[in-house]
């Protein structure tokens, strides 16, 4: 028991800090856990979305008459069929459920086909004709930020900027014993959860009900209600057992399309991405370019860092602004640095959308700040552990954003414990 009993009652200590087996474990080892693609309902239809094959274009017209005539096809929907708002997005509502004016990436959803069987679905997909006018596209943040670049969302391509300024970096750089400047680049990465995106929707007792693989059912509810133009209380989203997410199932995938199809047809509809569709259409980890300058004194104590981070968020913002803001906040690493100048840019391009992925921009900056720490250590002839211990946060330390850290600042203990384990295992033998 917490509080007055000070955790002494037997039942408490036996449950917190105990490796209880997963509450959903038995269902998962017997195969009885029903993932979204495992669900089926009487009279169920199947849905698939036609996606753009060009990165940037004005959409002129979609001709779906022939597709609608394919036997077994229940409906083909385009943007005009959306009853509510045709824009979704976690931070910025900049992404269409079905494209209405502009295609901004390869893989943008154009038309939704609903049919009684997979064969009809496939046949109808190939009957849809899309008319568009291609536009010049940009494929790197550098091009996108340059003057005269095609504007992907109407204004400039810089979605957001974060600046963190503290102390006087330029003076600190002059006083420093060692200064290291390097450029780091990181790649685009796929979440590759084992379960591709999937969902099943039906109108049950007047409620649009969606069983879906997701990391945020309440966000899904908000978006489906807005897109259908109905109250949030008319939408019920039930998270199915979700076969991994890692940030890639935070954005809308099948939710709004399924809601639309079930709402319009009045029948249960199931939609499951193929692996290829999942990897081609889902958001990714931001590729980043990081220019990093660090400076320290003769003892290896950090005096200043100057960091510029540019992240390619692709065609839509998704979690990009938050990712780049977090990257900026964490750019010093877990070290006390009195003088900082950090700026990060979240930039639109016509590349695949980058959103949240496990770490939210921090794995990118960690690669940079930890390489810098080793370079500084090398310049001063210090051991990599020593330079980190000399700089890491202690209780009472102040971060780049001016936050005083008071409690639970375990970085030093993790360095000590990881080093002790490495020593115990003989990993450091012949090294230092």
């Amino acid at each position, binding site marked *: 028991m917490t509080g007055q009993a000070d955790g002494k009652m037997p039942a408490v200590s036996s449950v917190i800090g105990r490796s209880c087996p997963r509450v959903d474990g038995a269902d998962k080892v017997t195969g009885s856990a029903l993932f979204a693609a495992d669900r089926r309902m009487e009279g169920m239809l199947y849905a698939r979305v036609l996606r753009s094959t060009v990165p940037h274009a004005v959409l002129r017209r979609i001709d779906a008459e022939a597709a609608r005539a394919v036997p077994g096809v229940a409906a083909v929907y385009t943007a005009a069929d959306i009853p509510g708002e045709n824009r979704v997005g976690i931070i910025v509502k900049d992404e269409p459920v079905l494209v209405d004016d502009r295609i901004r990436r390869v893989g943008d959803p154009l038309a939704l086909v609903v049919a009684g069987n997979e064969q009809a679905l496939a046949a109808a997909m190939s009957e849809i004709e899309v008319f568009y006018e291609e536009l010049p596209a940009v494929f790197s943040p550098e091009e996108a930020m340059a003057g005269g670049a095609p504007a992907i969302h109407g204004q400039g391509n810089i979605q957001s900027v974060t600046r963190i300024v503290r102390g006087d970096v330029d003076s600190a750089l002059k006083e420093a014993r060692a200064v290291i400047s390097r450029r780091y680049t990181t790649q685009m990465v796929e979440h590759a959860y084992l379960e591709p995106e999937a969902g099943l929707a039906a109108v049950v007792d007047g409620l649009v*009900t969606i069983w879906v693989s997701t990391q945020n059912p309440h966000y899904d509810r908000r978006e489906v209600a807005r897109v259908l133009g109905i109250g949030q209380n008319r939408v019920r989203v039930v998270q199915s057992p979700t076969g991994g997410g890692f940030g890639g199932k935070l954005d809308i995938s099948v939710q709004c399309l399924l809601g639309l199809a079930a709402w319009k047809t009045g029948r249960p509809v199931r939609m499951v991405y193929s692996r290829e569709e999942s990897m081609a259409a889902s958001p990714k980890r931001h590729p980043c370019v990081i220019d990093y300058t660090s400076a320290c004194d003769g003892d290896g104590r950090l005096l200043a860092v100057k960091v510029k981070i540019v992240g390619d968020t692709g065609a839509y913002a998704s979690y990009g602004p938050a990712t780049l803001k977090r990257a900026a906040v964490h750019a010093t690493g877990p070290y006390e640095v009195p003088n900082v100048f950090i700026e990060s840019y979240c930039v639109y391009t016509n590349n695949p959308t980058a959103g949240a992925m496990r770490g939210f921009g921090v794995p990118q900056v960690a690669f940079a700040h930890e390489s810098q720490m080793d370079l500084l250590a090398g310049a001063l002839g210090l051991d990599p552990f020593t330079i980190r211990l000399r700089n890491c946060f202690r209780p009472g330390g102040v971060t780049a954003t001016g936050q005083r850290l008071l*409690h639970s600042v375990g970085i030093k203990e993790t360095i000590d414990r990881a080093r002790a384990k490495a020593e115990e295992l003989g990993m450091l033998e012949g090294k230092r």
Partner: protein
Amino acid sequence: MKKRGIGVGCMWYGIGNTGAPNPAGAFLDFLEDGTVLVLTGCADIGQGSSTALAQIAAGELGVNIEDILVVAGDTGVSPDAGATSASRQTYISGNAVLLAARQAKEVLLQEAAGVLGAAASELGLGGGYVWRGGERTPVTVKDILARCRQKGKLTLGSGWFNPLTTGLDEAGQGVPYATYSYATQVAEVEVDTETGKVSVLRLAAAHDVGRAVNPQAVEGQIEGGCLMGIGYALLEEVKVDRGRVGNPRYAEYILPMSLDAPEIHAIIVEDPEPTGPYGAKGVGEPALIPTAAAIANAVADALGVRFYDLPVTPEKILAALTAEGDHKSPDE
């Protein structure tokens, strides 16, 4: 020739959304037979939040975990818990569940106080009994639940928690997170200078999680994060050509597999967070963050040549070793 290297990677990670409100709520019903229903919006995507939340409720109410049913992620019945992201659910939904449990428990304790002629603040629940000052009383939890029902009192609780943060001002100053997790990983690699292949032999991964509600699940996060970090460091890259994903298949997008998994030594460090449920913070993302950094540093240690561009592929290593042979331009 095979060259061995050691690298260190450290990280910190703010729990929850950056400088923005991100609350979570929970409902709890202490049913008359002594079992408990927890309703939470928190999506368990495999990391084990439903289990951790059940443990937190069980801990507060003094019942067995088997007596807790967590209904998660159903907007028809559960309150909003925000996203399962930013390593936030153990800390934020954990607190919401804890507060909901406390509210329901308070109803029982008030009732028990009347029966025992004690102050509610002296009492606790555990193992089916009411406890007073650390001593078991003869009064059972079921008795108290029955008395509550007879008087028309429901033993319900609701709770919500929003971490104390501020936005960032023009100069980026503020309190973006209420608490941070920390980690250090040490990687040992072997680089084959003929093929450029890097093998990660061992990883020691020490993570300050505040308090491990479920140590096995925390280890699972660390081990999985380490392997994903190996992919980030050495293997994985989405190839994009004129906006098109060029390798949208497992056959072409190479993930670490079982044979790539090194010895991983997960070390749980517990520096309790006063505002966390039982001191807990988060571990989901920290698990992966320092791995690529540690491996890149280990490769530099092995070869004396540093790489500034992820992933560190055999092609890049061979190219760099060839260039080094030509120009002799080592690391720093």
